[in-house]
C-alpha cells in the first residue's frame, strides 16, 4: 500500500540527483520521493548507487548536481551531524560503534554532560533497549558483542535520536528470524509515529513484506519506482539486473547434483572453546560443500575460527582438530593458511581486508602471507598481474586494481576478500556468510565460484544463517545449536522447517 503524502508534499525529495567520484557517476539524474510515515525499500545490485543516494541524504557526502528538498525546502548537508539536526539518521551496514565502550556509552555518545551519573545512563539504556524488545546488556562492551547485537545497538541509537527519517542499510543481514520479527515491529511503530523509513536490503522477500513503496536502482539510475503492490520478486530482480535471475540464483548446482564425498580431510573432534563451542564434532570432505546452518550464538563461527587459528580452543580438554588425520593446533591464522586452511570472514570490514589499501595490494599481501608470492622482494609487475588475474576471475568491478577497497561496493569488497583467500591456494576454504550484504547478481557469481571450488576437489565449508542459501548450495547440511553440531541433513531431505527445528530445539 502506498502512503499518501500530506498535501502532496514529500518529506524528502531528490531531483535529478547526480554524484560523481573522480568523474565516474555513482548516481545519475535520480528522482526520489519519500513520504512521511512511509517504508520505502531501496533495492539494487551492489554498486547500483543505493548507498550513495542515502549517504547524500544523511550528510555523509554531497551532490555533484541536482537538488535535495526536505519538507519542500532545498537543503544540503555537509556532515552527518547536520543531517541529524534536521531529523535524518542513518544506520550503516558496517557498524560505526566504538568497540571499547559499553552499549550504554555508545547510545549516549556525543550527549555527555560535564558530570555524568553512569548508573543513570545504564538504567535509561536498559529501559530503552527493553522498550525496543532488544535483548542487549547495556553494561557489555561493544567489542564483546556479536554482529547481530551490534546491529541492534546501531538501530537503537538511531531510534533514540528521534529522527524523522531513518535510513537502514541492510539492517536484517545479521539478525535471527526472531530478531527480524522484532525489527519489523519496531519499523511499524516508527511509521505510526510518522517517521519515514528507507530500507535497503538484498532480501527481496523482506522488502516485499515490509515496504509501502519500492524503488530500484541499476548502474546509478532509477529504473523502477512505485507502490509495493506493483512488484513481485521476479519483476524486482529483472529491474535490478536486467534479466530474470530467480531460477539461476539458488540453483547453481545445476540439476540438483549432489557431490559424493571425497577423502575426509578435516575432522573436528570434541572441540570446546569457553561456553561458546561445546564438545563439537564434525567432518569435512574433499570435493564437497559442507553447509553449516545455525542461529547467531550457535557457535558455528567460533568453531570455524578455532579451526583456522583465529581463536584458541580451551587449554584443558579442548578437543582435537585433525587435518588429514594428523592433529593440528594453530596459534595464528598464518599457520593454518600454510597448511591450506583459509577462513573467509563474516565481518569483512573488520577482518577481511585493509580498507585503505588497493585491491592489488590486498591480494598481494594475502599471497605473501601464504608464501605464494614468488620472490622475497615485492615485484610490482607480479602485484599487478596477480590483481588483474583475480579481478578477471572473480569479476571484481572497479575503476582499476589501484582502487582502494573502501571505495568498492559490498559485493566487490566481498570478492576481494574471497580473492585474498583463494590466492593462498587453499585445500579447505571456510566461507562464513559469503553473501551477506551482497546483491543478487554477485550472489550468483559467488555461489558459482564456491561450486567450482568443490568441483576442483577442494573441501568447502559454507556457514550461513540464510536458509535458501544453505539449502541450495550444500551437498550436506549440518545444523549447529548451543555450540555443537546437532543434526545433519542431505539436500533431498532438508526442508526449512526441519533445519530450523533442529536449530532452535
Amino acid at each position, binding site marked *: 500500500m502506498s502512503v499518501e503524502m500530506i498535501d502532496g508534499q514529500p518529506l524528502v525529495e531528490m531531483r535529478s540527483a547526480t554524484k560523481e567520484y573522480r568523474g565516474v557517476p555513482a548516481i545519475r539524474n535520480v528522482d526520489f520521493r519519500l513520504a512521511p510515515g512511509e517504508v520505502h525499500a531501496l533495492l539494487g545490485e551492489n554498486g547500483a548507487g543505493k548507498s550513495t543516494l542515502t549517504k547524500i541524504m544523511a550528510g555523509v557526502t554531497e551532490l555533484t548536481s541536482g537538488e535535495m528538498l526536505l519538507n519542500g525546502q532545498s537543503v544540503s548537508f555537509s556532515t552527518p551531524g547536520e543531517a541529524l539536526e534536521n531529523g535524518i539518521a542513518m544506520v550503516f551496514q558496517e557498524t560505526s560503534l566504538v568497540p571499547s565502550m559499553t552499549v550504554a556509552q555508545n547510545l549516549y555518545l556525543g550527549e555527555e554532560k560535564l558530570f555524568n551519573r553512569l548508573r543513570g545512563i545504564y538504567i535509561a539504556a536498559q529501559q530503552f533497549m527493553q522498550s525496543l524488545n532488544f535483548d542487549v546488556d547495556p553494561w557489555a562492551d561493544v567489542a564483546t558483542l556479536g554482529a547481530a547485537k551490534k546491529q541492534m545497538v546501531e538501530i537503537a541509537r538511531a531510534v533514540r535520536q528521534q529522527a524523522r527519517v531513518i535510513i537502514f542499510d541492510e539492517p536484517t543481514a545479521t539478525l535471527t528470524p526472531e530478531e527480524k520479527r522484532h525489527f519489523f515491529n519496531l519499523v511499524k511503530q516508527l511509521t505510526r509515529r510518522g517517521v519515514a523509513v528507507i530500507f535497503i536490503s538484498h532480501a527481496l522477500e523482506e522488502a516485499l513484506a515490509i515496504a509501502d513503496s519500492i524503488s530500484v536502482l541499476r548502474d546509478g539510475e532509477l529504473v523502477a519506482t512505485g507502490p509495493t503492490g506493483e512488484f513481485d520478486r521476479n519483476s524486482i530482480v529483472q529491474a535490478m539486473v536486467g534479466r530474470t535471475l530467480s531460477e539461476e540464483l539458488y540453483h547453481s548446482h545445476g540439476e540438483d547434483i549432489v557431490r559424493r*564425498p571425497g577423502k575426509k580431510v578435516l575432522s573436528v573432534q570434541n572441540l570446546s572453546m569457553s561456553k561458546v563451542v561445546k564438545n563439537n564434532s564434525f*567432518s569435512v570432505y574433499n570435493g564437497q560443500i559442507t553447509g553449516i546452518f545455525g542461529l547467531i550464538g550457535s557457535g558455528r563461527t567460533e568453531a570455524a575460527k578455532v579451526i583456522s587459528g583465529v581463536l584458541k580452543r580451551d587449554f584443558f580438554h579442548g578437543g582435537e582438530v585433525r587435518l588429514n588425520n594428523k592433529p593440528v593446533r594453530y596459534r595464528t591464522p598464518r599457520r593454518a593458511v600454510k597448511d591450506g586452511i583459509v577462513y573467509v570472514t563474516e565481518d569483512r570490514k573488520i577482518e577481511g581486508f585493509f580498507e585503505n589499501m588497493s585491491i592489488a595490494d590486498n591480494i598481494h599481501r594475502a599471497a605473501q602471507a601464504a608464501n605464494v608470492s614468488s620472490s622475497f622482494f615485492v615485484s610490482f609487475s607480479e602485484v599487478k598481474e596477480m590483481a588483474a588475474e583475480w579481478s578477471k576471475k572473480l569479476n571484481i568491478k572497479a575503476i582499476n586494481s589501484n582502487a582502494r577497497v573502501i571505495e568498492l561496493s559490498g559485493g566487490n569488497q566481498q570478492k576481494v576478500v574471497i580473492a585474498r583467500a583463494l590466492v593462498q591456494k587453499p585445500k579447505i576454504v571456510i566461507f562464513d556468510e559469503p553473501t551477506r550484504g551482497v546483491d543478487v547478481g554477485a550472489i550468483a557469481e559467488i555461489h558459482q565460484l564456491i561450486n567450482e571450488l568443490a568441483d576442483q576437489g577442494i573441501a568447502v565449508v559454507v556457514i550461513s544463517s540464510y536458509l535458501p542459501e544453505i539449502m541450495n548450495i550444500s551437498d550436506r547440511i549440518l545444523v549447529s545449536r548451543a555450540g555443537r553440531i546437532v543434526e545433519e541433513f542431505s539436500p533431498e531431505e532438508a526442508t526449512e522447517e526441519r533445519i530450523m527445528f533442529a536449530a532452535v530445539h
Partner: protein
Amino acid sequence: MGNVFTRYIDRLRGSGDAAITLPPMDGALRPNNRIEEAELLVSTEAPDNLVLHDGKVLFSSDKSLRSLTADGQVEELDATDSTIEFLTSHPSGALAIGLGAGRIEIRGGPHDGKRLLALGQTPIVAPSAAVFVDSDTLLICLASRQHAMGEWKRDLMTFGATGSVMKIDLRTEEAICIAQNLAFPSGVALKPDGGILVSESWKHRVLSIAEDGKITPVLDELPGYPSRLVPGAGNDIWMCVFAPRTQLIEFVLRENEYRKRMVAEIDPEYWIAPSLHYPNSYLEPMQGGGLKQLGELKPWAPSRSIGLVVRLDGEGTPWESLHSRADGRRHGVTSCLPTDEGLVIASKGGDAIVRAIT
C-alpha cells in the same frame, strides 16, 4: 626426558595422546535406522559368517553350519566340535571353515577334506576371516596369537597386536606371512588390482597391502571397530563395524590401573568395553543413559553396541551406511552378504538375519 614432560603436560591438558576424542559419525556414516527397519529374514541365535556357496546362503551359529532358504527357512547342514569363526567359498565348490578349536577345514573343491592345524610355523589361535585368491590359495586373517576369538574383549583391553595375515598354498601347505603385528585383523578382501584390503579392528582402520607387500592405510580414524570386508557391486566393498568407539571406553583404555583390575577381577561381560549386544543383565554397564539438565541432555553412559555396515568405494572411501542405533536391537553386525534382493545382514548381537534395500 622431553617425552616424559610432554606426556605429563598432555595428560594434564587432555591433549596429544591423552586427548580422548572420537571421530564423528557423520557424512556417509550419518546414523539412520536402515538395519533396524530392514526386513527380518530369520531370528536365530548369534548368526555370523554369511556366505554364498553353491547358490545357497550359508551362515554359522556357534558350532552349527546352516543354510537360509529363499522362503526364510533355516536348514541345519552340519555341526562342528567348536565355534565356526569364518566361512569362505570359492566357485570351484570349495568351502573353507575356520574353527575356534584352532584348525581350518576345506570341504568340497579340489582340496576337499584338507585340515590345517597350523599355517607353517604359525599356530591357528584366532582365525577371524579368509578369502580364496584362487582355488589353491587362501588368504587367512589370524586375529591374535594370544587370545582365541571368543576372548576378543580381552585382546582389546590388553592392547593385543599379535595378529597376522597369512597366504597359504593349499597344494603344498606352504604359508607366507604377508603382514604381522596387526591389532586384531578381522576382515580381508581382494582388490581388483590384485592388492588386499585388511581391517585392523583395534586401530580402527582398513589397510591396503600391495602385491609388493607395501602396507598403507586406506581408511583411518573410524568411529567403530571394523571387521568383515565383503565385495559388493563394481569395486565397492561392504565393511561391517561390530561396535562403536566411545569416549568412556577410550578413557578406560588410558587408565591402566583401572583397566588391569577390571580385566583381572571382573567377568568380561560386565567390563566397560565394546559389546555385540544391547545389555541383557542389570549387572552390565548401562548404555544410553543420560540426564537432562537445564534443557540440555548430558549423556553419561554412552552406548557400547550398535549395528553398522558401511559401503566403501574402490578407493576405500565410505559413501553409504546402514545403522541400528543405540536404541535399536540389531547390534553387533559381524557379517553381510550382497544379493540381488538386497544386503543380507547378520546381527550377531541381535540374533537376527535381516535384508536391507541398498
